[in-house]
């Protein structure tokens, strides 16, 4: 009995916490006059389905495409640079590795909004701002690469050393053992961490806002910010935009929920 009382309380707390999400979807479905009703309604009286309209009017396809491009670029670059580094940091133990790991942990905490000033000036001087989406990919990669290394390292630590050593004794080269033994065994962790990096970069805002000048190249976050403007009152549309944007993120999250939680906790506390 007590367990079910707890379940009901737990459900109520979760519902309270997730209320802002409910309100987003609800507002997206309400009619444009219903949102300005007072007292507000908690269930749409006449649900409107204006997702396609907002998608077209706000040019969301282009914004989402730019966000996707940046997120894919960052994810590829990060996995290529970070996986090997995470592996080495999990296997070799000496003072130099300790120093390298410490430096990487320090770079993990640098706020984008503070790093963007020197990065903007530097990229401007070497002409990188001419291809601003690449500039955002490079800057965002530097931001998330340390996190990827830390989380992936935790995965590699869990792979038994003996498996790799056995392969080496059998005459495999280091490269061979890395690709045939280590990578397949760490696959799950690498995958989940990459998804996490992808989702974070898909919602990136500071670098896109600061480094991209042309509206055609802007990301979905900046598109939303423009939509909100100083005198926004089309909350109906804004929440529709937000719902279209975050629903895929939430679906991926729901599918991988358990793994994301365990990957995150392993990395943050080790």
């Amino acid at each position, binding site marked *: 009995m007590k367990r079910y009382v*707890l379940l009901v309380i737990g459900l109520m707390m979760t519902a309270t916490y997730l209320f802002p999400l409910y309100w987003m979807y609800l507002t997206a479905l309400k009619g444009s006059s219903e949102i300005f*009703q007072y007292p507000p309604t908690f269930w749409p009286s006449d649900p409107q389905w204006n997702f396609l309209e907002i998608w077209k009017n706000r040019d969301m396809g282009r914004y989402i495409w730019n966000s996707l491009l940046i997120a894919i670029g960052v994810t590829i670059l990060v996995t290529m640079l970070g996986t090997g580094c995470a592996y080495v940091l999990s296997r070799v133990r000496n003072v130099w590795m300790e120093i390298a790991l410490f430096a990487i942990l320090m770079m993990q905490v640098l706020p984008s909004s503070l790093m963007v000033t020197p990065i903007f000036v530097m990229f401007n001087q070497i002409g990188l701002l001419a291809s601003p989406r690449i500039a955002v990919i490079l800057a965002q990669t530097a931001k998330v690469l340390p996190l990827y290394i830390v989380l992936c390292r935790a995965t590699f630590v869990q792979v038994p050393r003996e498996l790799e050593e056995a392969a080496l004794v059998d005459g495999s080269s280091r490269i061979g053992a890395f690709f045939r033994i280590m990578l397949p065994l760490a696959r799950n962790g690498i995958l989940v961490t990459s998804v996490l990096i992808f989702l974070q970069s898909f919602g990136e805002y500071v670098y896109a806002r*600061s480094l991209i000048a042309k509206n055609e190249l802007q990301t979905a976050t900046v598109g939303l910010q423009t939509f909100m403007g100083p005198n926004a009152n089309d909350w109906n549309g804004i929440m529709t935009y937000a719902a279209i944007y975050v629903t895929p993120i939430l679906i991926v999250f729901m599918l991988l929920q358990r793994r994301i939680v365990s990957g995150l906790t392993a990395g943050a506390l080790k």
Partner: protein
Amino acid sequence: MQGIIRTIRDGSGFDILLLGLALVYLVAFSAFPIIYNIIMSLQTVDMFTITSFKRPFVGLENYSTIFAQPIAATVLWNTVQFVVLSIVFQLSIGFGLALFFQQDFPGATYLRGLFLAGWIMPALVVGAIWKWLFAGDFGVINYVLTALGLTDDRIFWLSDPNVALYAVIIANIWLGIPFNMILLSVGLASIPRDVYEAAELDGAGPLERFRSITLPLMRAQLGAVISLGVIFTLQQFDLIAALTQGGPADSSNVAQYWSWQLSFQTYEISLGSAVSVLMILFVIIVAAAYVRSTRHEHSY
């Protein structure tokens, strides 16, 4: 040449190559910008000198200009409030929820995981949703507060300079709760059950058990979560951009946002650099303390 290929294929050259790739990248795009930032904070950098490689050095003038600005004190005090209040509430609510979901009931783990939905969403979208929740005339928060009789009048959360900062803090607390809760849950799960059972046999009540077992055994975890909280709170930019943009009249402006405003809105880039240098320094000190404390426990 052969030797180099062999060591990369089969020796320590392999390790050095893999480690080197990532480190060179981070040095070029993280470490170098920090150094460049320090140099810029000692120069005059504005729209005219931004592309030049020879800029006049002005010593510490930018730093004194920053502190002489009338809003410097406001921003500093706001930043302190933003960090302290965010962390106090994120931590206590997160800890409470972690304790609750630690109990044995059906679906506890699943429900706890659902909270992370708030963490995975882009902060700018979270800001957009909260801006609508906080809306003065038609916002649902004002409706709930007046319906419950907690306030008589509508609160203009985002346009009243006395409350704008607290509105941003509330949204930031919402964002930070899941992370705090999950990390603290891991710590709670690692406390052996029999310790509690033994204490219960000795007649210790729930409060006594919490005070004498949970808190001391969670000390390291709490320390880690607090330092991570400081770090993440100082990274928060998107939420402020979506909600108030530092306004009205800088009443909700914090250091990391001010630095960006100086560089990208008023183009006083060297002033932006100076603020940025000070804040990065602070973040690194906090992070170093955090890393030292966690390393200490897992020393091998």
